[in-house]
């Protein structure tokens, strides 16, 4: 039985998904970043978890078609994207362009790469960045995300207008993004786009 624990000290880049034990390690290694990716696409945690689970199951079933010279995390992210497209076709509740997808892909591929190469992961970077956030912004983030308050509740507890809370949250996310990018040294990650993705037509 593979209980989700790291069972070898093997270089993550050499893990073979065709080996069941190593497949389990790859699930451990990549599931959190894929959850962020799927949640950013679906905006719902439970659906994101379903999509990530289905993607890993498909990956396992089709593992014999996987080209071992390729990057497993890119391949599974592609499967997650396919699963999300299926879901999005049936549940089109919001607009999502290919350009949006490119921007999200760009960051998630960097985060996955950092994790796989054994460097700091995005959650560690976020923790450091949260500490550096200005007090008023950190309070808003704490109330809204970590205490689960609604915008109105946060507004009441912090004694500011709801519009100000929304603005603070947005501002905090912008600053956190810049900080996380800096912490993860985005320039040096293994997976890279040659140019920043833009609103190019679909290929």
């Amino acid at each position: 039985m593979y209980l989700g624990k790291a069972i070898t000290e093997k270089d993550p880049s050499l893990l073979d998904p065709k080996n069941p034990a190593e497949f389990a390690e790859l699930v451990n290694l990549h599931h959190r970043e894929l959850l962020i990716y799927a949640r950013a696409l679906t905006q719902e945690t439970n659906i994101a978890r379903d999509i990530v689970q289905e993607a890993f199951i498909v990956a396992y079933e089709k593992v014999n078609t996987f080209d071992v010279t390729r990057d497993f995390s890119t391949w599974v992210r592609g499967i997650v994207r396919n699963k999300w497209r299926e879901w999005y076709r049936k549940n089109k509740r919001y607009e999502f362009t290919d350009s949006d997808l490119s921007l999200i892909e760009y960051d998630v591929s960097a985060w996955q790469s950092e994790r796989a190469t054994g460097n700091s992961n995005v959650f560690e970077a976020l923790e450091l960045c949260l500490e550096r956030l200005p007090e008023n912004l950190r309070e808003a983030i704490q109330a809204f995300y970590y205490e689960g308050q609604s915008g109105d509740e946060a507004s009441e507890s912090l004694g500011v207008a709801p519009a100000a809370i929304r603005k603070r949250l947005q501002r905090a996310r912008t600053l956190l993004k810049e900080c996380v990018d800096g912490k993860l040294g985005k320039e040096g990650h293994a997976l890279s786009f040659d140019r920043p993705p833009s609103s190019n037509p679909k290929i």
Partner: protein
Amino acid sequence: MNPDSHSKDLNPAQDRLMDALLAEDARLGKGRDQELINSILLNTVNAPVDITRHQPFARPPIFTTADWLKMAAAVFAIASLSVVWLNKSGAGKTQASPKQKEIFFVVNYLDDHQAGPAQPRVDRKVLLSAAPGEKRFLPVTSNVTKSVSTFEFAQIDLAPPSTEFGPSINDLSFLSANKTSFKVAANATTHTTEGKVVYSGDVKLKHNDFELTADSLVMDKPGDSSEVPLFKALNATLVQRTGAYQTAADAISFDPVSGELVAKGVHHLLDHGVEQVLENQALIVVFNANQYIIEERYASPNR
């Protein structure tokens, strides 16, 4: 971190990503989603075989061996009694009764009527699988058929009935434009017993999003959907329909599982007409959605 710096607000997609990151961090911090991992593993590497592979319940036998022996004994006894009775009654002697002759005549008549005029023998297996009027081919290992270089399956006229066995170009009608979102043209096609189609010589694959040319291309037989099936093309070039991206590579394959076009051994990569500097030719470039990713060699090459 200075909140008064002149950072622009995030693009809505990036804002959504940071929102997802914060939500995930609030949910589990730096830890694992152990419940999700367990669920994935239970459906993959730890899946119980009896659950994943449906096996109907074995039915208990209706008759046991002892039952069969009893029935055999009963049949034997009845047969023996019949023989004794026939011997006593004089039946079964050399002279046949008129009634028996009549029965024999009727059976003969029916046989002749069914057979009708003499016809060549036809392989029963072929007939069984063919619908009325449908053309079927015997399975063969491979058979090469020439076609014109500008051939497109959606436009080809039906050829006169083939006198030879094996697949002809008409077999490829499953690629018709009505059914699929792509077309393939080639100088020659070959079918394999594994259900693949091999195109060789000036191969062109036209898709709504891209056009691919190659020396040869191997493709899985398309299913009922309009999705492009798995294919691998050798010595290929890929041009996005709008011309934004072009690449030339030793091989380009399409992976329907991840929906990605994967170019390996890339010689050139033009991005909006600008040649991209590639550090080596072993690069893998993955195209998906509206972007490409240069994927550095991640796995050990000798694995």
